[in-house]
């Protein structure tokens, strides 16, 4: 069976035979995997290199914690992917970028208005959480649209706050 795993936008191809023999991106891998406790702690030996990982299940795939870093892995087998791609929607235009609240918090200040053009790293909103003010900055340039938060409002983590549209084309 062939599996496709995506982490941080990078795609890996892993093939596993019914006997458990593994090939990763064309290279054979000698791996021994063991779940240590019911909490998701795993021990993995790859070509005798020892790794300890914590694995949590997610909607599709796993959240893997390894040495202080956490990775969200989207994994599926080939058949699954084929079925999904056949009914995939046309993806939204890549010009619109929704800005979500990265944490729950209190909106202390909204620093932009609709229609305003912002540059990379311009401050958009100040969210107060854990008694500290956190500046939410623009992840790229764009035009502010659909501001859906206002000062004094509490927002949940991941709540949409506004949309960054594409810069006006000069044509």
């Amino acid at each position, binding site marked *: *069976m062939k*599996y496709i*795993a*995506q*982490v*941080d936008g990078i795609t*890996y191809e*892993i093939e596993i*035979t*019914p*006997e*458990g*023999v*593994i090939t*990763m991106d064309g290279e*054979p*891998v*000698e*791996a*021994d*995997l*063991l*779940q240590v406790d*019911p*909490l*998701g*702690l*795993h021990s*993995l*030996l*790859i070509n005798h290199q020892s790794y300890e990982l*914590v*694995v*949590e299940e997610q909607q599709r*795939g*796993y*959240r*893997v*914690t*390894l*040495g*202080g870093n*956490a*990775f969200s*892995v989207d*994994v*599926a*087998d080939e058949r699954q992917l084929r079925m999904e791609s056949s009914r995939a929607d046309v993806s939204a235009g890549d010009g619109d970028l929704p800005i979500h609240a*990265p*944490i*729950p*918090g209190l909106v*202390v200040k909204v620093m932009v208005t609709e229609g305003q053009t912002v540059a990379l790293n311009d401050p958009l909103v100040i969210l*107060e*959480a*854990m*008694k*500290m003010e*956190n500046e939410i900055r623009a992840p790229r340039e764009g035009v502010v649209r659909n501001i859906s938060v206002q000062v004094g409002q509490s927002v949940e*983590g991941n709540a949409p706050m506004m949309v960054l549209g594409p810069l006006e084309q000069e044509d």
Partner: protein
Amino acid sequence: MFQKILIANRGEIALRIIRACQERGIKTVAVYSDADRSALYVRYADEAYHIGPAPASESYLRGDKIIEVARQAGAEAIHPGYGFLAENADFAAACRDAGVVFIGPTPEAIRLMGDKVTARATVAAAGVPLIPGTPAGLSDDELLAAAEEIGYPVLVKASAGGGGKGMRMVFQPEELKSSLAAARREALKAFGDDTVYLEKVVEGARHIEIQVLADAHGNVIHLGERECSIQRRHQKLVEESPSVVVDEDLRQRMGAVAVAAARAVNYVSAGTVEFLVDKDGNFYFLEMNTRLQVEHPVTELVTGVDIVKEMISIADGRKLRFTQDDIHMKGWAIEARITAEDPDNNFMPSTGKIVALREPTGPGIRIESGVYVGMEVGLYYDPMIAKLIAYGENRAEAILRLRRALTEYRIAGVKTSIPFHLGLVDTPRFQWGQFDTRFLETHTPPVTDDIGEKRRIAALISAMLLHQRGQQAVTLGHDGGRKDGVSVWRKAALLNGLRRLV
């Protein structure tokens, strides 16, 4: 000695105080909000009382409720830890009025040191050197003028401040107005008082503080210095003792000044006098923290003095067991604050449920932790969830042990500052001790360089787990179908090995 002490705090520091009490045979009373019913300190205390909903203002800041619980439980004394009510003079006074011993300084000393302006005037009179700056209470325009005189960069500070709240560094005149506004807004929210003042920025300055211990009989000693220059937005991230820039002569001079500052307010209990030390070894008074400090363990490790137990003895009216000559520093200790923040995303607070945990142990490692499996890390309280302290023969060994312990830390469910600390200990300038309080503004510690390899492993294990799930009809059980002591994976690995031999 007290028979029972109430701990008016939560998290790791509540547990720290419980341990000190247990080691003195004193019973402990914990108080908890709705968010902390299952907390470690509640489970480790002898008794526990619910005091209100999660917001601190309705629970841990409710001095009246806490004193009432002390009465009900028969606790003779209250230890406030740090934060919350620790530097609240009114609470200390209310304890006194209620006939409960407040384990800390007098309300008068807290009040004198609590207002930064009064504090500076008081210690200056005792001969303590100050940083040039303005008085408090000036208008924005007056402050603009004063800043020109002091010279940029200047620091905007809240008069009632502490912990970096309401503090801003300003480099150019045109930034000052907006920084004043932000600082006043934060100060008003945090302390109910938007008074600010300006201070000259001591360039290349290192944050070095002196731990003092004072009893009620007029004896005051110091326990040497701690260096806390590794800060982000005025929040300390790493502390150590001793400091690479403090030699025995400077230590004795700073210690003498710190003792003088404590004497100036008739200080009793443990306290910390904070200084900035410039590159020429001049030092300036910053403020005095009239409480137990987060970073007290590094001092405990190098001096062998248990500061929390001494605070209890002092509150009980005992004389200090040490004179200054009894205090000797041996070895080196470094503390890394483990916070629920995402260092890869601008230290945004990270929330969630702790799903797995294994804390480092072994030689030279001390953990002060409030973390446990099942814990909900929320946004109600400080993001610091644990402290990792490494002790070694010298600074190099302490750093190597810290590094080793950081790689051993297993915590899943929230992002933490561990990757930041791992990057920091691999930074040559940190290793060489070459840094000041602005170090992190100019030096971004390297991120883990093997992130690509880790990503690959995360992808691999995910595919293996998905495969395993598909095979579940054949290989049941959480050990991956290990029935004869050999998993399907190891069998495959052996097979693989054989193939290669062919």
